[in-house]
């Protein structure tokens, strides 16, 4: 009783939120309704006893895919007026595509029959004392491992293609090379020295600032006097 009730509640919310995905005015609301739809689909999986699929649906679609959707949609600046203008124009084409799909679905469903063996499997699924996680693992990684691996390879190719298309390095970006930073030797970048007081570093060849010589400093305007004094002190206090 409770399971049936839960099924109808989840199914109703699933269909309702799926309808809201296409009819919501705000695209961010659409993505949030999509997430709600995913959740209810996961709940239906749970009711069917497929807890592994339910969790994977939440992890993959809600936890990763929908986050990226939301990420993109939030940053888009969608022009709603233009979208509504297109609605009238594309309505006939869309209706036609929908009609063709509907007819095809009807044809498939009318010709659908279960083999007698398949019907018996439906009501007594598999070996009962094996959890469905282990069953899925056995199917994917033992029986159909090569098909699974080739599907993975197709995805890998697609991923590399997407990266190659979008990765543009103009060569003027300033990258942080952590290995080089760590490899920096203190001996190359600084000098430790003991200085006697009132001597400074001038006689050792270290000058700061190096641009202005003391002779030029005398020609500078009046108001900079106190700064010269400060520079003189910094050079070791030669007055």
């Amino acid at each position, binding site marked *: 009783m*409770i399971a049936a009730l839960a099924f109808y509640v989840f199914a109703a919310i699933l269909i309702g939120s799926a309808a809201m995905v296409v009819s919501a005015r705000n695209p*961010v609301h659409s993505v*949030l309704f999509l*997430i709600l739809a995913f959740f209810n689909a996961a709940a239906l999986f749970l009711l069917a006893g497929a*807890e*592994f699929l339910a*969790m*994977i649906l*939440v*992890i993959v679609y*809600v*936890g*990763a895919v929908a*986050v*990226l959707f*939301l*990420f993109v949609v*939030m*940053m888009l600046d969608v022009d709603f007026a233009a979208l509504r203008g297109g609605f009238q124009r594309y309505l006939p084409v869309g209706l036609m595509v929908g009609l063709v799909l509907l007819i095809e679905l009807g044809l498939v469903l009318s010709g659908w029959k279960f083999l007698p063996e398949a019907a018996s499997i439906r009501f007594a699924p598999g070996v009962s004392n*094996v*959890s469905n*996680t*282990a069953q899925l693992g056995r199917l994917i990684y033992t029986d159909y491992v090569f098909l699974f691996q080739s599907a993975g390879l197709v995805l890998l190719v697609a991923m590399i293609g997407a990266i190659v298309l979008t990765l543009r390095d103009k060569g003027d970006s300033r990258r*942080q090379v*952590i290995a080089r930073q760590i490899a920096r030797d203190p001996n190359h970048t600084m000098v430790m020295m003991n200085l006697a007081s009132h001597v400074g570093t001038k006689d050792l060849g270290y000058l700061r600032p190096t641009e202005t010589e003391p002779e030029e400093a005398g020609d500078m305007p009046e108001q900079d006097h106190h700064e010269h004094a400060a520079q003189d002190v910094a050079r070791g206090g030669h007055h």
Partner: protein
Amino acid sequence: MAAFFHTSFGILILTVLQALAIIVPVLLGMAYLTLAERKVLAAIQLRKGPNMVGPFGLFQPFADAIKMLMKETIIPSGANRVLFLLAPMLTFGLAVIAWAVIPVNDGWGIADINVGILYLFAISSLGVYGIIIAGWASNSKYAFFGALRSAAQMVSYEVSIGFVMVTVLICVGSLNLNDVVLAQRTVWFCVPLFPMFIIFFISGLAETNRSPFDLAEGESEIVAGFMVEYSAMTFALFFLGEYTNMILMSAMTTILFLGGWLPPFDIAPFNWIPGPLWFVAKIMFCLFVFIWVRGTFPRFRYDQLMRLGWKVFLPFSLIWLVLTAGVLVFMGWLPHVV
């Protein structure tokens, strides 16, 4: 009486009581975690920390809670009201419901489900929604920056957390959290899988938006990130959610790597102490490290954060996963398949 608890109404009451039995200690622990954090940070910085409210400042969390309750909840006029209020509730709710599967002792989890570890992973991967929705619904630039940073950050670190979990799982042979702990009776997984333990802990810091990965808040660059428009109880719910998530991440570390409720050695003085106490002690140790890290390290720069996640942790955990699987198969140590 016993018959009553087998009727559906009785089961409902029992479940509610069980839920309260775990949520109330978690929330109390959370309250005192805020105090502990301030005290530990104070000790690190050679200060005293809160010491005025109650003995040793022990009533400080309650004073803070009352202060938060008394303040006015301000909803910005440009904000999306429903989502603005939904986001903190979502953050806090997700942080609490994950506790349904945490086994505090052998068989003490409220829901002893087959895919417990996947449930935890799913819930922790949902935590990002509270932050994204908050950042978007606030209709404020800083909040939006925080949300975008957080989305990219959490997605990056979940990948390596996933590989760490898979590595643990192939050593256990089950997705049930109870089995994960029982598989560590001979040796805790933090010993043979030590690099994965470190990766998991660091990824946990990033997943909970804790320092040094608290770029979503980043109070010195984007004010308070996604929480900038929140006040009073809505802010408090984010705060509660963050600390509950810290405790949850510590509990996950404890279960996956530190042997859950098991004592370090199954000999006399250690196995006198009951399992839940070991569990709490290990969680407290992890929490201390969380706070210690906060007091020690400066915040990561954003590109460094992404580099660490994608270019360091992901390849390393992948290689270590293949290595672990290879060793298990080669030595014939693969756990018995149910």
